[in-house]
């Protein structure tokens, strides 16, 4: 009987948290931070939904409404969704999935969190001093010339936060390349690792383009003339090109990690190997690469030539191929599996359904003619919320429940978990499905008043949003509850494969006492028992410690 090494949570001082180099603690710092931003952005969304209950603009002025959707978009995109799975779950799980003691650059990892905080402070400063009314897209010339709000400080906040995601991406890429345990070949990597690698590629190559674009816009605002300024021959559409060159790939920063999490959940809770491992892994890379050549589909009506419109339309259609491969393979994995409907699985199944709807409606928008009809309507709003909220947030919640015992050493209450997953699913659909109809009927986005015939659908949507709010509040409460009263979790409560489950819960600071050796493919669930296949004693057995 050996003495257990100390859990990573053992030290309690504030200093031990703020100066930590431990990837697990940094993941938790990120989690606490993004919860704050999620809460603020949700309040903005709630105010918008309340305003939209009546056709008249009676709760807030149109100007305030503009600021509300800007703050909602900016915070949700850059301060919640982008760091959500990568910086929280990725930081926590990725090194353990690789059998590593930490990421390649632990100090840079901590620095990325401080940079993120600095960006967040700038964004909140802009919010407190009156907000920004440009929308999260910062389109010129409104942002560079006409807006009277705090555009520069908000853009600076996004600029700064971008570097935290660049550092995270670089760290993940180097970690995956250089720190895999012996025997952990590329095609033995869990699919979450593949998807985080693809995500990192986008973070590293696309984020700097956003940074320079926002910098150029801000310089133009200060200087009075600039590169997007028609007075000196500049083209405002160039801003849109550069912005979407980042922001379309950024959409995949906001979905690829979710796909990775779902691959982990589906295999574990149907006790089966993933169907077509290589295809799912390659699909992640294909989505990342194709994501760089489809940005023009945001500009079909912005005055771009019809020929580039056609090209961007075709290329956008091609993204549906790897996406569909993933959906088919998850479904095929479920086939003949022994499925158990634990909370993480409910979220994963919800993800598949909602992502499919979001993806299919994406095809409507990628079609040139249809897009002209629904551009800038609630159809677009509904589409990307199906991907980002129905997809990414569902996956994030599923992943958080799945790894919660690993992170905290406690189980969450299962019944409350299932209830919350169900409430979220119902609330989400009630919020956003009516918006497809609204958009198709011609309701434009970003208006605080509307013709009375749209009121019915807006009321449905607001009702759904209140249910959705309960669905998010409930986990927040029982997660807190579980920290003290939750059942103590074993090292591997789900009997899952994967190196992260070979550690005690919560893991010691350096994760593994001895670097594990990997001898087989991931998801080696036995076809008959559904339990992990026995292997020849090469992998470290923590239960024997």
């Amino acid at each position, binding site marked *: 009987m050996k003495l257990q090494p100390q859990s990573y949570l053992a030290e309690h001082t504030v200093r031990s948290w703020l100066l930590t180099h431990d990837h697990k603690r940094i993941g938790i710092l990120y989690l606490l931070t993004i919860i704050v931003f999620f809460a603020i952005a949700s309040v903005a969304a709630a105010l918008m939904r309340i305003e939209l209950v009546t056709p008249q603009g009676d709760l807030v002025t149109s100007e305030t409404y503009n600021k509300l959707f800007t703050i909602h978009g900016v915070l949700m995109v850059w301060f919640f969704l982008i760091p959500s799975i990568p910086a929280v779950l990725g930081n926590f799980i990725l090194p353990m999935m690789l059998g590593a003691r930490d990421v390649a650059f632990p100090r840079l990892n901590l620095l990325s969190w401080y940079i993120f905080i600095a960006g967040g402070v700038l964004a909140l400063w802009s919010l407190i001093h009156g907000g920004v009314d440009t929308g999260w897209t910062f389109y010129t010339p409104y942002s560079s010339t006409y807006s009277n709000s705090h555009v520069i400080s908000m853009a600076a906040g996004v600029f700064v936060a971008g570097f935290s995601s660049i550092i995270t991406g670089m*760290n993940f890429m180097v970690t995956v390349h250089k720190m895999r345990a012996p025997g952990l070949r590329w095609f033995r990597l869990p699919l979450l690792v593949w998807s985080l690698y693809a995500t990192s590629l986008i973070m590293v190559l696309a984020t700097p383009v956003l940074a320079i674009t926002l910098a150029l816009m801000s310089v133009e605002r200060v*200087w009075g003339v600039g*590169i997007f300024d028609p007075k*000196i*021959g500049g083209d405002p559409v160039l801003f849109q090109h550069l912005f979407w060159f980042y922001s379309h790939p950024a959409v995949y920063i906001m979905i690829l990690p979710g796909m990775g999490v779902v691959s982990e959940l589906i295999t574990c809770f149907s006790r089966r190997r993933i169907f077509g491992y290589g295809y799912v892994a390659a699909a992640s890379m294909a989505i990342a690469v194709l994501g760089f050549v489809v940005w023009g589909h945001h500009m079909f009506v912005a005055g771009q030539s019809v020929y580039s419109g056609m090209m961007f339309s075709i290329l956008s259609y091609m993204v549906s191929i790897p996406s569909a491969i993933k959906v088919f393979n998850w479904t095929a994995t479920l086939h003949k599996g022994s499925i158990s409907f634990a909370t993480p699985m409910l979220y994963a199944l919800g993800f598949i359904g909602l992502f499919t709807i979001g993806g299919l409606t994406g095809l409507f928008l990628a079609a040139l003619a249809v897009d002209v009809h629904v551009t800038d309507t609630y159809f677009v709003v509904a589409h990307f919320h199906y991907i980002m909220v129905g997809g990414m947030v569902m996956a994030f919640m599923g992943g958080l429940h799945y790894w919660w015992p690993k992170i905290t050493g406690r189980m969450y209450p299962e019944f409350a978990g299932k209830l919350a997953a169900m409430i979220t699913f119902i609330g989400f659909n009630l919020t956003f499905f009516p918006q497809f109809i609204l958009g198709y009927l011609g309701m434009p986005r970003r208006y605080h008043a509307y013709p009375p015939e749209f009121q019915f659908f807006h009321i449905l949507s607001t009702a759904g949003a209140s249910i959705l709010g309960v669905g998010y509040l409930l986990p927040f409460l029982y997660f807190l509850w579980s920290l003290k009263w939750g059942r103590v979790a074993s090292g591997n409560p789900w009997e899952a494969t994967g190196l992260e489950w070979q550690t005690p819960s919560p893991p010691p600071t350096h994760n593994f006492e001895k670097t594990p050796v990997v001898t087989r493919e991931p998801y080696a669930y036995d076809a008959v028992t559904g339990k992990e296949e026995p292997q020849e004693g090469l992998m470290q057995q923590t239960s024997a410690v």
Partner: protein
Amino acid sequence: MDSATDTVLAEQFDEIEQQHSADTLGMWIFLATEVMFFGGLFAGYAVYRFSFPHVFYAASHHLDVLAGAIDTAVLLCSSLTMAFAVRAVRLGQRWMSILLLGVTAVFGAGFLVIHGFEYHHEWTEHLVPGGSFAFEGADPHRAQMFFWLYFATTGLHSLHVLIGVALMLVLAVLVLLEKITAARFMTVEIAGLYWHFVDVVWVFLFPLYYLAGAR
């Protein structure tokens, strides 16, 4: 070598080779990020040069090709001394390392001084875009775009040079204090990668801006 390998090896790595290759890969990825960062400006240049080429040719004549050539020579020399500095650190030649890092910093600072004089000259010639801009020739409005891009791109590049100079000085002090020894040569090697990158960016900037008007 006065520093044992095990004090150099960070706890998350198993072997020093693993650490070195991780450090190098990290820097290359960072440089890829930098390429995309400058890429936005190069994209802007490409768009507007194709949109109004004649204005760009005419505007380019107002830049001092000789000064630009000296800039280029100074930076190329600094890359050479940087490469020698890495070698000296590897071989544990302490004073030689300090000297070469110092010379690299001086070259970098020299570049900034020359460029400062160029900026000053362009300021007096009213070539800075904005209210005081004045340009003899066809299409003075659009000529501003050339100079806007010129100031933005070379300004961003000069900022990188400035960071590089500071980096060289810090490294020289660290070598002096024996915080960097032969066992820790990687720090200098990686800083070298950054420095060479900054030079390479200039190698693209020089023809695009200074030589655009040359026959």
